């Protein structure tokens, strides 16, 4: 009993949950990158993003975690799947890997990782002297509409343009081929 009790202590539970989330991220990322079938990749991406949402929870922002799920998993991944579905043979053509290319990519990736790790471990991370503890979504909303008003507007505009652009590009391509 003791051991079980000790297992279900909150911080232990949190640890286990964290490990699960990390495992989810890594597994998802690997699936997103390695298999040659695109559908697997997308599914891996979804898994990975779910894990990232979990990480966000651990980082103290359930709101962003929710947004992550909504936007990434709910919108982007679904649109990718739609794209795959719409252009029918996409998932059928499985281009073969070229070993040298994979090797090169692995090398570069490792190099980048080493670089990043080096930077991370070499840097003295100093927390800010004065830290506010206001995590509420209300403040976030206020900030968005006051201090980051312009950025918010620009992002919206970018989204609008992107949507228009997407329609025009795919429409134009259809016209030019038909």
């Amino acid at each position: 009993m003791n051991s079980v009790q000790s297992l279900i202590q909150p911080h232990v539970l949190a640890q286990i949950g964290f490990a699960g989330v990390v495992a989810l991220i890594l597994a998802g990322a690997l699936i997103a990158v390695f298999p040659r079938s695109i559908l697997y990749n997308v599914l891996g991406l979804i898994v990975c993003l779910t894990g990232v949402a979990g990480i966000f929870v651990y980082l103290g922002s359930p709101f962003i975690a929710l947004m992550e799920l909504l936007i990434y998993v709910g919108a982007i991944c679904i649109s990718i799947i739609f794209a795959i579905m719409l252009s029918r043979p996409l998932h059928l053509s499985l281009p073969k890997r070229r070993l040298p290319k994979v090797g090169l990519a692995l090398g570069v990736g490792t190099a980048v990782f080493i670089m990043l790790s080096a930077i991370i471990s070499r840097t003295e991370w100093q927390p800010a002297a004065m830290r506010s503890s206001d995590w509420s979504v209300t403040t976030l909303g206020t900030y968005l509409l006051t201090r980051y008003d312009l950025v918010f507007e620009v992002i919206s505009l970018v989204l609008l343009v992107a949507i228009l652009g997407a329609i025009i590009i795919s429409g134009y391509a259809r016209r030019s081929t038909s």
Partner: protein
Amino acid sequence: MNSLYTYLFLAALLFSLGIFGVFQRRSLIGMLIAIELMLNGASINFMAFNRFLAPDPIVGQIYTLFIMGIAAAEAAIALSIIVAVFRRLRSINIERAQELRG
């Protein structure tokens, strides 16, 4: 779990995997997926700094939100381009897309 380094390494790992994916994939959609991974790595970074270092914990979240917005826009554009390229070349193999070269 309560250390900044854990999150930073996790982010770095995700970013490197994304880079690896971008380089290694031969299909455009695969590359897009890998890019999403990289973006998420960046997001985790922001959120981690937000949690451990930043004076105002709202700012990091806002950045993450923006990243998501940009990612959505990017995905929309990229997918439409992919569809267009596919229509034109009957393939999404990036190595076939060399007509783009100058």
